[in-house]
């Protein structure tokens, strides 16, 4: 059966290349410009799709939280309130840009840009479909998490550049969160890597064609889910932000477009982390009848829904409780998971091939 997503994607690519051909024939541009322009056009298209999807995700999150609170949430702007996020975006764009008088001006400007761009890079490492991916490399999982780990560093910088007690406390809490989630995160990914015997996202997804890893190592998936929440700084683990305790933590001094960039980075991270969960544990693009990017997107959005669901349900632990949970529960559990993987690997690997 033909993958319908592929038809659509090749159609879009055709449109882009036809338009470029037309432009080139009219303006008589040199040939060597073709490739860079083509890549730029594709990147922009991908970004546009990403932004549209993120608008949808924010809308979904607000709606779901509203429903759980027995409210209606956004209803007024556009059909079912969908345009509310666009309105919010415009509001952020036209807001006055301010920075504290004694703050480090350069870092205050640079950190939002840094976070937004770093948060976006891992998106190219994930294969969304059997034919729709940006690049394939042998160590994409390692690179993926190496890049993700940069973000808390920038967060500490951003909090420091805010030059207020709340942002500094928030920044230190972000560091504290980092040391509590890094170890279980690596250990739970190690289970997947051992079972797939590869560091490549593509290979990990390919090998799950018969059975998903969430069925083979449920504890690992559970730990990875929790740790992802910690990494995303989402409730219940939004300790660096902790509204009601330290305002909005390390983001306190940022307004307007800078805040918008932080917000966008948060949702880029949300998008990418749920994509990683889908790739590592939910079998990526595999589904009934045909393998398609559509299945990947559906699974990814279900993971997001689950994260929103968790966000509304549980309350925030204290920072010391977080470390306690991490070191006395998550690390032993992930080691247990690793043992389990080592035990069942000899029986499972022949089945997976």
């Amino acid at each position, binding site marked *: 059966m033909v993958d319908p997503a592929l038809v659509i994607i090749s159609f879009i690519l055709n449109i882009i290349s036809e338009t470029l051909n037309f432009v080139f024939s009219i303006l008589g541009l040199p040939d060597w410009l073709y490739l860079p322009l083509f890549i730029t056009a594709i990147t922009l298209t991908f970004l546009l799709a990403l932004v549209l999807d993120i608008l949808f995700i924010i809308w979904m999150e607000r709606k*779901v939280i509203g*429903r*759980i609170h*027995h*409210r*209606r949430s956004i*209803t007024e702007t556009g059909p079912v309130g969908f345009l509310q996020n666009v309105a919010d975006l415009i509001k952020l764009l036209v807001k006055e840009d301010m920075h504290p008088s004694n703050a480090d001006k350069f870092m205050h400007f640079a950190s939002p840009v840094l976070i937004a761009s770093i948060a976006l890079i891992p998106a190219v490492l994930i294969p969304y479909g059997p034919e729709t991916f940006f690049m394939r490399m042998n160590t994409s999982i390692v690179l993926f998490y190496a890049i993700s780990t940069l973000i808390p560093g920038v967060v500490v910088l951003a909090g420091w550049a805010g030059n207020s007690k709340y942002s500094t406390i928030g920044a230190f809490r972000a560091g504290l969160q980092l040391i509590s989630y890094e170890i279980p995160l690596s250990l739970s990914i190690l289970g997947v890597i051992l079972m797939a015997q590869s560091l490549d996202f593509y290979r990990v997804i390919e090998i799950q064609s018969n059975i998903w890893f969430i069925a083979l190592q449920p504890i690992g998936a559970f730990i990875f889910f929790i740790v992802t929440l910690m990494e995303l700084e989402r409730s219940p683990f939004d300790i660096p932000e902790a509204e009601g305790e330290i305002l909005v933590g390390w983001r306190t001094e940022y307004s307007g477009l800078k805040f918008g960039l932080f917000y966008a980075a948060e949702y880029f991270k949300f998008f990418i982390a749920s994509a990683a969960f889908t790739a590592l544990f939910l079998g990526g693009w595999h589904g009934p009848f045909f393998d398609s990017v559509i299945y990947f997107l559906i699974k990814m959005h279900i993971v997001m829904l689950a994260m929103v*669901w968790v966000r*509304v*349900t549980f309350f925030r632990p204290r920072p010391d409780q977080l470390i306690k949970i991490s070191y006395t529960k998550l690390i032993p559990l992930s080691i247990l998971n690793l043992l389990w993987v080592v035990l069942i690997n000899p029986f499972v690997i022949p089945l997976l091939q």
Partner: protein
Amino acid sequence: MSIIKKIKSIILPMRVTGKYMVSKPFTVMYPREKAVVKKQWRGLHGLHSNKCIGCGLCRMACPNDCIDYIYPEGVDPRDRKQMKLRRPAIDWGHCIFCGLCVEACPTGAIHHTQEYKIYATSDSRLDLIRTPYEIATEDDVRKIYDDELSKIRELMQTDLLEVAAGGEWEEVIKKLRERWRDLWYMKLDGKLDEETWDKKAREIEEIVLEIIKQVSLP
């Protein structure tokens, strides 16, 4: 054992929020949707005029003195036998919708409707005082007043006006009302012809209306 407990402590809250996620929201989009009120909702009052026996219990039950009675035209209130013809007028500006009058009514004449919107069509305090003809449920009794003066003429029989005005004006209106009542009784006794009564009563009513307007809603 404790592991099962911990798993439960994760699953149970998720189940509750999950249930809420698929349930309908409680919010009513009010101006566009009509709010649904319960059967026992104590809304604005209605009156079954033909059930009312003019017993006066609703006035006695009211803790806020916002009920007084109005006699139909041409009926002499001094005649105790005519008492059964009087009907309650209500000042919703003072009412607390406690429902005691409804509870006291022996015939179920005065009752609460499902209506919850209490609004004034003008900035006049008079709008919140409703005569029995305005709250009557029967169509043939219902009356809509052309102007405020004709409504004041009905309400001059009641003490609702002075209570509504309140403060220093209470005494003033009380005195005006006494003068008005003397004229009324004279007219009922046939000592005053229709035209002079109308002219003299109108003078007093205009002053009262002026006072009521002064103490109007902002």
